[in-house]
């Protein structure tokens, strides 16, 4: 929970609003903020935003020796961090650390103990090499979304090849837990889903639930001292499961469309790079001039094929052969081992890229080929003895929280089945009709309608406004008193207006 640098005004106002069923955003009490997902250029990078709070997440992997207890399993590690705009709301450093620990523990429970990721699939050589994956997600609900997407798209390679050489294999993920938080006020009488910054600072406790798309609960965490009844908790869990399903389907669609794009680009990269590599075997004297020519050509191709920067960098590395001996030896070991198959493939590919072939005529020297054959065995042994080979793309992560007030008309549809089962109880839990003041006639009626059928009511409202012009109503208003009288007598006026319009 965030410490309180708020004013008494805010706390009381938020409570008063919620008692009457309003929220500062304009959302209904069980509505979530709109979700946006943006993918980075490389695998394993996601930015997720719920409304105006954002979380960035990245997943990276290392090859490491496994634990001696479990020689056939890999590791998953999760680290969390806040940015400075968030830490100003928290006050001291100790509280910041406490919050971070809370969040990371929740995610770990959800992902590790529920076996979301198959750790045995991370094994490369039993007892020797194993993947350890670091997830760096920094906001809870955003996190789990981000972490799951990233783990879904993560790469697995045998001896580290770049994607230009072999296709990446995704991590095997059994299920994706998604977390949804509820805030409660006034000793558990009022519940809200997905609290805002302001609401979160003035809440008295929260309940966060990590649920599957298969309706399995992965973890539950309750912060704060006020008590909740069993009915309330079950109600929250059911709501959470519905929303988790929707979020999961939404995230899946976005992921799949993103993956298609990445794979197409990767395939194109692979074709081009393989054709380049075959032609360009080493003489260091010739390299510099030829490289510069080819780079310009390749970068030109890249624009036409919608390259990523990723691919052009790979081409750079392959060509700077004197600098990186490992890449040198990898390529040559691969080519010499799979000569026949690769040559056949390349002949087919070369027919497609005749333009390339014209510009890439480089002399191949037999002396160099013999040298590489001789060193092949030694180089393979060196690779096996290296325990840690790091992948390049590791990024640092931060959150941004922004406090803005907007009326938002988006919402996630809630099916009516569960509402019919729990009509009476849900009204008592989340909206206490008894506490509504009796003087407000129209607004109370509106609230009652809202409590029961949110979707239907909104559709009805829109249809009402279409028939009556707003400007005609506003012409009659001259002072705030007349406005209040308008509110009370709205029904009559609207009927009059309709009659007038029909006559016309």
């Amino acid at each position: 929970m965030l410490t309180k640098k708020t004013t008494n005004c805010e706390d009381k106002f938020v409570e008063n609003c919620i008692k009457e069923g309003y929220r500062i955003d304009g959302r209904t009490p069980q509505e979530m903020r709109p979700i946006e997902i943006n993918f980075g250029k490389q695998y394993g990078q996601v930015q997720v935003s719920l409304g105006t709070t954002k979380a960035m997440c990245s997943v990276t992997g290392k090859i490491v020796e496994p634990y001696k207890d479990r020689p056939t399993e890999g590791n998953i590690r999760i680290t969390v961090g806040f940015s400075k705009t968030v830490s100003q709301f928290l006050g001291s450093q100790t509280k910041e650390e406490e919050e971070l620990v809370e969040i990371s523990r929740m995610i770990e429970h959800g992902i590790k103990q529920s076996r979301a990721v198959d750790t045995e699939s991370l094994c490369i050589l039993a007892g020797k090499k194993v993947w350890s994956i670091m997830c760096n997600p920094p906001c809870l609900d955003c996190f789990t979304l981000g972490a799951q997407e990233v783990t879904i798209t993560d790469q697995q390679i045998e001896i580290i090849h770049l994607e230009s050489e072999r296709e990446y294999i995704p991590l095997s993920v059994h299920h994706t837990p998604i977390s949804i938080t509820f805030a409660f006020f006034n000793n558990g009488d009022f519940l809200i889903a997905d609290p805002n910054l302001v609401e979160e600072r003035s809440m008295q406790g929260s309940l966060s639930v990590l649920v599957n798309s298969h309706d399995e609960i992965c973890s539950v965490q309750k912060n704060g001292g006020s008590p909740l009844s069993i009915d309330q908790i079950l109600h929250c869990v059911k709501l959470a499961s519905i929303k988790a399903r929707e979020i999961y389907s939404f995230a899946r669609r976005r992921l799949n469309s993103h993956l298609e794009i990445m794979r197409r680009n990767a395939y194109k990269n692979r074709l081009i790079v393989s054709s380049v590599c075959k032609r360009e075997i080493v003489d260091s004297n010739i390299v510099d001039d030829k490289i510069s020519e080819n780079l310009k050509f390749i970068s030109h191709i890249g624009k036409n094929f919608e390259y990523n920067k990723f691919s052009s960098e790979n081409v750079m590395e392959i060509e700077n052969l004197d600098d990186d001996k490992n890449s040198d030896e990898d390529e040559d070991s691969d080519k010499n081992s799979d000569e026949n198959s690769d040559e056949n493939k390349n002949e087919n590919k070369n027919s497609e890229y005749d333009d390339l072939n014209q510009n890439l005529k480089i002399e191949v020297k037999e002396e160099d080929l013999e040298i590489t054959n001789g060193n092949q065995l030694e180089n393979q042994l060196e690779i096996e003895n290296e325990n840690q080979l790091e992948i390049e793309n590791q990024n640092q992560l931060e959150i941004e929280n922004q406090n803005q007030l907007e009326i938002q008309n988006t919402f996630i549809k809630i099916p009516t089945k569960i509402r019919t089962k729990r009509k009476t109880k849900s009204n008592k839990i989340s909206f206490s009709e008894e506490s509504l003041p009796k003087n407000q006639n129209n607004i109370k009626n509106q609230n009652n309608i809202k409590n029961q059928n949110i979707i239907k009511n909104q559709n009805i409202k829109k249809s009402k406004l279409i028939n009556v012009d707003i400007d005609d109503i506003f012409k009659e208003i001259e002072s705030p008193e007349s406005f209040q009288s308008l509110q009370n007598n709205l029904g009559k006026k609207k009927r009059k207006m309709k009659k007038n319009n029909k006559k016309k």
Partner: protein
Amino acid sequence: METQKVGQVILPGEIIGKIKSTSLKIGNGLNIEEDKVIATKGGILQYQEKDKYWISNFQKRYVPKMDHMVIGIIINQHGENYSVDIGSASRATLSIFGFEGATKKTRPNLENRSAVYARVIQADKDLETELICIDKRQKSSGFGPLDDQGYIFKCSLSLAESLLMNKTPVIKLLSNYIPFEIAIGINGRIWVKSEKPNHTIIIVNSIIQTEGTENETEISKIIKKNISVLL
């Protein structure tokens, strides 16, 4: 000073013009070096009659200056001083005797986390900023603690300026429909109070959504959209 850059976007470090007359009032974001006036912030140059120049942008961090009217949150009481959070880099102090009719026996009982409308007396970059809740004639005239039943929200400094200088007609147009009280602090905090929480939400949202414009027609459209929720 002769410039052609009034109303244009300026980047920090740009030279705006040379000083010719002695009566020149330079405000936010401008500095004088020898003969020239140089910008230290990015934004739009503004000009008011009789040699007043300043730069306006969508900044949120507040730098205290003399005679500014601010909304502060009380954090602590150390002896005879309250330490108040204004939104600047360091906290300000408010003495107990800075209220109307305050003596050693009659002290104002302000709780922690309550809001106060105050005036800046001392604003030096090397010293602590000091506040006071009294007019120059030692009367409250609006200063002092703010009611618990209002709502405080944050906005950019330029919005607060334009509201205080009556450039935008938002408040007038809103007052045609809803009765409310409002207190505006130049440090980007606004306090609003009205009878029902409905109304305060509408006021807050309509103020924020009409930040860039000064047209009455545009503003009235936005207000009508927001109010139509009630109808």
